[in-house]
């Protein structure tokens, strides 16, 4: 059992045209920068990407959009991205927008072996069209299905050689949920340590969910909205 790979190129070696990918991150926070770079380099096409956002024009999934590698985005909010908008309006890109909590819970459902879950998000709106609505205790819920993704690509803070992961601050977001949900889960980490170095009480994603792991390099960690306050 060796889960450690040399780097992103090896980790994504069998991601081919038409694959369904989950990509962790919220905005540009906690995104798998190394794997995205390798996917862009590899030029694999017709991808379906499940990710809360679509990056910005020149960073994150935006790089894959620029390179015309994405056939379909499944997201909750696609943000400010001119190329995304152009492709969407021209019909080159298919987009499915779903509520953020539904997106998160459909990942969790896959990782927990639950075929579907009930959520009130979207009940009574156009999101409910074509979906089963069911009333529990006087409130309407939609039946939403677990995602079925070929690969989940996540970014963690620390990881060990057995695939155990720990995330940092709000860079956690969708990463542990997607890590549970991929048929094959690839984790890039800022710091890779030998098995046994992480406190087993404090692991966010147990290694059973992770198939490949590597220590990433050159993280840019771009900030999307730099907001500050003045020192008094």
């Amino acid at each position, binding site marked *: 059992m060796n889960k450690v790979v040399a780097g992103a190129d090896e980790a994504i070696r069998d991601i081919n045209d038409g694959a369904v990918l989950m990509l962790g991150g919220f905005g540009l926070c906690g995104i798998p920068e190394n794997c995205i770079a390798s996917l862009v380099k590899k030029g694999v096409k017709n991808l379906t990407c499940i990710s809360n956002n679509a990056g910005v024009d020149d960073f994150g999934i935006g790089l894959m959009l620029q390179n015309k590698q994405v056939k379909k985005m499944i997201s909750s909010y696609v943000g400010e991205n001119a190329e995304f908008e152009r492709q969407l309006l021209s019909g080159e890109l298919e987009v499915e927008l779903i509520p*953020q909590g539904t997106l998160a819970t459909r990942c969790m459902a896959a990782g927990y072996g639950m075929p579907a879950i009930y959520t009130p998000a979207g009940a009574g709106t156009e999101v409910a069209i074509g979906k089963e609505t069911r009333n529990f205790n006087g409130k309407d819920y939609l039946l939403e299905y677990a995602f079925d993704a070929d690969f989940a690509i996540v970014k963690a803070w620390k990881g060990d050689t057995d695939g155990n992961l720990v995330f940092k601050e709000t860079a956690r977001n*969708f990463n542990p*949920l997607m890590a549970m949900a991929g048929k094959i889960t690839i984790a890039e980490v800022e710091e890779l340590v030998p098995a046994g170095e992480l406190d087993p009480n404090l692991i966010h994603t147990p290694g059973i969910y992770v198939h490949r792991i590597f220590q990433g390099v050159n993280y840019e960690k771009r900030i999307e909205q730099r907001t500050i306050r003045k020192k008094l």
Partner: protein
Amino acid sequence: MALTKEQIAQRIAKELKDGFYVNLGIGIPTLVANYIPKGINVVLQSENGLLGMGPFPFEGEEDPDLINAGKQTITTVPGSAFFDSAMSFGMIRAGKVDLTVLGAMEVSEQGDIANWKIPGKMVKGMGGAMDLVASAKNIIVAMMHTNPKGESKLLPGCMLPLTGVNCVKKVVSDLAVLDITPQGFKLLERAPGISVEEIRSKTAGRLLVEGEIPEMKFEV
């Protein structure tokens, strides 16, 4: 005088109670954090996965791994906790968040809300808004009473695609504070110098006015 955005936030802050867990949406709702009454302890939730959100960082102390749901760099307060997005929306769905403050394009007299999509315009997505409105037990909407053309945004029924149905409990606009009741919008307070007649003329949905309607007061 119609309220400024800051005053809308200031008025909403009066709804806060000690020990409340609160989710503040983007825009005016975010400003509410600046007016938390003294002596009251409120914990801010950010739906990307944080309880205990603090103010923006000082320059040079920005942490790219620490952002709020608006993707802004933030800080944490003592006692904060990070969690994944499923737990985040889980605690919202389970009614653990005491108050949610959101912006809206339209609100109906039944408490329906539209705030995510304008037909014909580029749709960026609902983000967490649909989860929040469908799940939160107590939703206050912060909004302008009318659109730039002067048309009411408080309607008998929403015309824009809905974000959620029958979920808004209270509206604080630049002109008034209103509860959503089975009889429609119930006027509770007026902005200083704004008459009941003006509010009535700018409220397309049913407006319920009972007795004397007090003016809002703001301490400076």
